Each structure stands twice: as structure tokens, then as C-alpha cells.
């Protein structure tokens, strides 16, 4: 089996964090836990995550702020908002800020897995879409200026892949 899906979970409710992490680990996901926003941002800077589960209301940096930083710094990460605060406005607000979806606590594990699946799909689609654009640009670059110029452009494209 190849590499597992890398998931970041951020919640100030430690017991909740432990149990949900454990359950997802049992199911083969690679879970990293953070109990507050600062910790989450620091972790995301040192490692790459495919998906993130984010509690909205936390002491210190709240879920919204973490969401904005994650989306800015990581092009293909998909973030799902978790909260006990079940109102439609905050859901809409978060999806506007780039969250993939929204899951009110408490929920069934199946619901979580469903949304994780959808989010991963979206991530892959975005990624492949970006790859295809790059392939197109490689083809365009191949018929143009001097060999050295093309070489430099290609190198820049490669750098964008992060």
C-alpha cells in the first residue's frame, strides 16, 4: 500500500481529538493532531497535509484565521470545518473563505468519511487540472524561443509544484 492520506485535525477539545484521531487511524489515515490554531499553522509549515479538519471556536487563533492561513500557504489543501456552533451563517462564511465543507458536531463517522472522500476528490481534481494546464504550457514553450530560454521557463514551472 502506498502512502496514506495525510490529515490534520485541530480542536481544543483534547478528548474529542484523541478519539476521532484514533478512529481515523484505525481506518488507515495518517492523522496529525493540534490543540490550537498556532500549533496547527506551525505543523502545516513543516509538513504537507492533504486535508484538514478544523474546529471553528478555539481560544487564541480561531478556526477562521487558521483556515485563511492554510488556504494561502497550501495550494491544494482542502479544509473541512467542524463546530458545535451550528448556524448557517458561519458555514456560508467559511465556504466563502475557501473551506470545502462544513460538519456540525456531533455527527456520524460515515458523514465525516463521506465529506473527506469528497474533499479528497476535489483536491485531486484541482491538482490534475493544474497539471494539465502545466502540460499545455510545456507544449507551448517547446515551440518558441531559444533552447536556454525554454530551459529557464521549464525550471520555473517545476518550482511552482509544491
Amino acid at each position: 500500500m502506498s502512502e496514506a492520506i495525510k490529515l490534520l485535525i485541530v480542536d481544543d477539545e483534547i478528548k474529542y481529538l484523541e478519539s476521532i484521531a484514533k478512529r481515523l487511524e484505525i481506518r488507515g489515515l495518517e492523522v496529525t493532531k493540534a490543540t490550537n490554531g498556532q500549533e496547527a499553522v506551525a505543523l502545516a509549515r513543516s509538513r504537507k497535509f492533504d486535508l484538514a479538519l478544523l474546529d471553528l471556536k478555539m481560544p487564541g487563533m480561531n478556526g477562521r484565521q487558521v483556515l485563511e492561513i492554510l488556504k494561502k500557504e497550501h495550494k491544494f489543501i482542502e479544509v473541512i470545518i467542524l463546530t458545535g456552533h451550528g448556524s448557517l451563517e458561519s458555514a456560508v462564511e467559511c465556504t466563502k473563505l475557501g473551506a470545502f465543507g462544513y460538519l456540525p458536531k456531533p455527527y456520524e463517522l460515515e458523514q465525516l468519511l463521506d465529506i473527506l472522500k469528497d474533499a479528497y476528490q476535489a483536491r485531486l481534481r484541482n491538482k490534475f487540472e493544474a497539471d494539465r494546464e502545466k502540460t499545455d504550457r510545456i507544449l507551448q514553450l517547446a515551440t518558441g524561443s531559444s533552447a536556454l530560454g525554454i530551459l529557464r521557463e521549464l525550471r520555473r514551472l517545476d518550482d511552482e509544484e509544491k
Partner: protein
Amino acid sequence: MPEKESSVPPPGADTPSERYYRELLGKNFLRLALTYLAPLILLTVYFTLQYRAVSREGRRLHLRSVAEHQANMMDLFLSERVVNLANLIDDPKLPLPPTSGLMEALLNRLQKNSPSFVDVGFFDSTGIQRAYAGPLPYLENRNYSHEAWFISLRSGEENFIITDVYLGLRQQPHFTLAVRRIIGGQYFVLRATLDPKSITDYLHSLGESRNTAFSIVNRSGTLQLATPEIGTPMQASPLVPPVSPRIGDQRVRRGHQKVDYAYAWMRTAGWGVVVRDIEGENGVPLLGNLFGVMAFSLAPILVVLSIIVFRSKKLVQMQIERETAKAQFEHAAKLASVGELSAGIAHEINNPLAIISEEVGLIRDLMNPEFKMHTTFDDLIPHLDNIREAVYRCRDITRKLLSFVRKDAIHLKPHDVNQLLDDVVDGLLIREMAVSNIQIVKNYSCELPSIVTDANQLTQVLLNILNNAADAIEPPGAITIATSCASGWLSVAIADTGKGITQEMMGRIFLPFYTTKEVGKGTGLGLSVSYGIVKSLGGDILVESIPGKGSVFTVRLPVS
């Protein structure tokens, strides 16, 4: 075994609400009665007095005019009688002295003129009655030269005399009319006596004197003529009018009563006519009219009274309804302030529920043979404990909410305000504040006296102000709660680092339904109800604010 508390009041005793109802009714009745009835009664009294004064004045003028009229009539009457007498003696065909037979004829002529003539006599200068006709023939040849009237007539300026009523030789009340003449150098007097009773009848027959009693007195206060109610001639008059002015009226006290009378002095004789009301001493008809006036003004008073009774009952009903409505309103506001909390409360409850849900799921996973976890009972214990703990967290939250929302009767008990604050802050708010990045700083005074108050109501006020403070803050921020006590007042100051209150908002923050929150988020009832509650607890809410910096709400409560 403890004694069972009796919930049924003893028979005859009022329930507090009945007593309250009656007190309210009494108060309302008094107020309305004072407002509406008092002016009406004053008006009635005023008009009654006014009516009495006017009617007495009218009566007085009436009596006066009657007196004057009677005096004139008497003057006219007596003048006519003098003329009757003078006509006889001035007749040139009268032989001097006349014979007795002629005297009879003269008397007849006089009596044709007026039946009040009793007899007629002819006197020479010596005062001997030379001729006489009348019921007392033995008077003929009597000597009258020492009689007062004869002397007065002889020495007086006038050619005639009208005497007072006297008994004289005949020992019967009568008065004398005499005319003197000097004929052929000789002094003669023709004299007639008149019966006072017939004059009384005559005056009565004039009709003017209905409802009045009249009498005629001489200047020394002796009755000359009188209606029977007053007395008989020759008696002293009960009323003696003053000599001047000629016509007047007076009010005199006779025994317990006051008597109004009018008088007029005659010109022909030294007599005065005295007139007063017949019925009662002070006019029974007056009193009768007075009752009429009273009855007439009593009717509207009774109407107003019944309206007042009706209105005050209605007012009490309205007042009670309003108080009930106010209580319901306060309760609604309490619910509303909980509603404003509910977003935070949802977070508070949903978190432990999520823990339970996850732990249950995890236990299933651990026991699931599919995952081959080889779980022992000991492995499960921490998870079960977590579930238990989460359940109790939920229970604590719901319990606190319920205890706050419950519509309790007001219970005044000594309370430690610091403790109440801790219940609100630690019980309901602190986690909500923490996740919202609002720091709570407690700055309690440790020497706070306990105050007698209603915990539920005070909690509502504190919760409300704390909610508002949290709402005003753009996180991160802080709420500082300070308690203190000085000169009989206990203060709870709640300071926030929020957006503050502008000058124009300041005037409206305590108004019902004034809110700065989004539609559907705030009811605008919190502060207005809080203000009402603190006022009813004898305290006050003070507000200071710097826009952009924050606000301080201070709840002041009396210590005693």
C-alpha cells in the same frame, strides 16, 4: 417528624392577593373620589350657600317692599278717615252744636265710608262732649279736657290728631281721630274712634300680606295693630324697629332663631309697620327650596360616585393585568437573554455530545473483530469515563440554564454577590468567553457584605450585562468584573474593551426594544428589564463609555 406546613389559610383570613386587591381598590377609589367628587361637593356647597344668600336677599327686599306698601296703605287709609271727618265739620249746613239725631246721621255717613268707625263725638272748647253717637251713649257730656289727645290737639300745629291705641274710659282698645276747627270764633273738635281690628282685617284683605305677619307699633314699641300670630294691641312688641331710617330691615336674634323683618314708619301717625315671614322664624319655604337644591346636586354626585366605584374596580383590574403582563414581560426578556446565549450554549452542549459520539464510535471500533484490536476491558475504561464526564458536563449546563429560566417567585435572601457572579461566569459563560478569545478578569473585593436580594433576578441582570459586554468586544478583548462596597452601597462594575456607546445611543440604551444587534439576534429587552429589576431592588445602573475604547456598567445595590 417535621410539622407539615399548612398551605390553606385559616378561615376568614385574607390571601395576600385579596388584601392587595382591596388596598388597591381603596387607593384608587380615594384618588378618583378626590379628583371628581371633591370639586362637585364644593360646588354644591358653594351653590347652596349662594342660593341661600340670594333667596334671603330676595326675601328681605320683598319684606321691605311689603312694609313700605303697608305703611303707604295705612297712611292713605288714615288720611281718608281724617278727610271723612273733616268733611263733616266743614259742612256749612252743620248746626253747632249738632243734635244727637244729627250725630247718628253723621256716624252713618262715616260708617258708609269705612266700617272701622265706631262712634263720633262733638266737643266744645271746654272739652265737654256735647253730642255723641255710638255704642256708648253714657259718654255724652263727659269732660275730656284732661285727656292727652285733647290737650295735644289743642296745642299742636296740625289741625287733626291720630292717637295711639289706648283703652280710655271704655276700657277697650281703640284709637282716636280728631279734627279741630274755629268756626265763628269758637273752638270745636269733631272726634271719631276707630276699631283697630277692622283695620287689621282691611290690611289683610289687601292680599299683599300673604305669608307674612305684620304689626304696627308706636315709637315706644307698643303694639297698635297686629295679626294674631304676633299679639294683641297694647302689648309690648317683640320687634322694635329703629326710628331712623324710615324704611329698613333687620335681622334679630330671638332665642335660638334669627328673625328677618322689615319696617316702614308711617307719615300720618307715629306708627311703624313691621313685616316678617309667617312660616317659621327663618322661612320654612327657604329650607324646602334648599332641600330641592341639595337633592338636585346630590343626583349627579350619586351618579359620579357610582361611576367612580365602577372605574376604580376597572382600574384595579387593569393594574393587576398590567402587573401580570409586566411579570410575563420580564420572564420573556429572561428567555430572550437565554436565546441570545443559545449559540454559545449550543457550542457548550454539542462539544460534549461530539465527545460521546466519538467515544462510542471508538469503542465499537475497538471491539470490532474486523480491526483485530485485541481490546481488553481495561482498555475501554478511559473511554467510558470520558463518556460519563461528557454526560455530566451536559447535565450541568442544562441544570444551570433551567435554574435561571425557571419562573420562580421572588425570594429575598442574603446572598454573597461574589458567589452569584462566579455562578454566572464559571457556570455559563467562561468557556464561551474563552473560545471567543475574551479574557475574564475578576477583581472581587473580599470584604463584601452579603445583601438581601433575589438571586434569580440579580443573576438575570448580571448575565445580561456580561452578554452585552461580550457582544461589544471584537476579539481579542477582556471583561473586568470588579466588586466593591462603600457608604452603604454595593457595586458591581463590569468593564469591557468593546466598541463603546456613542453619545446618541447612550440616551436610548435602557429603552425597551432598542438594540444595536442584528435583526433576530437581540430583542432590545435586556437592559430595559435589567434596569427595571435593579430599580425594584432599590438600586441603580450607571453607565460610562468611551466610544472605541469600551464601556463600564455599574450595578449599585443598597446594602441594608
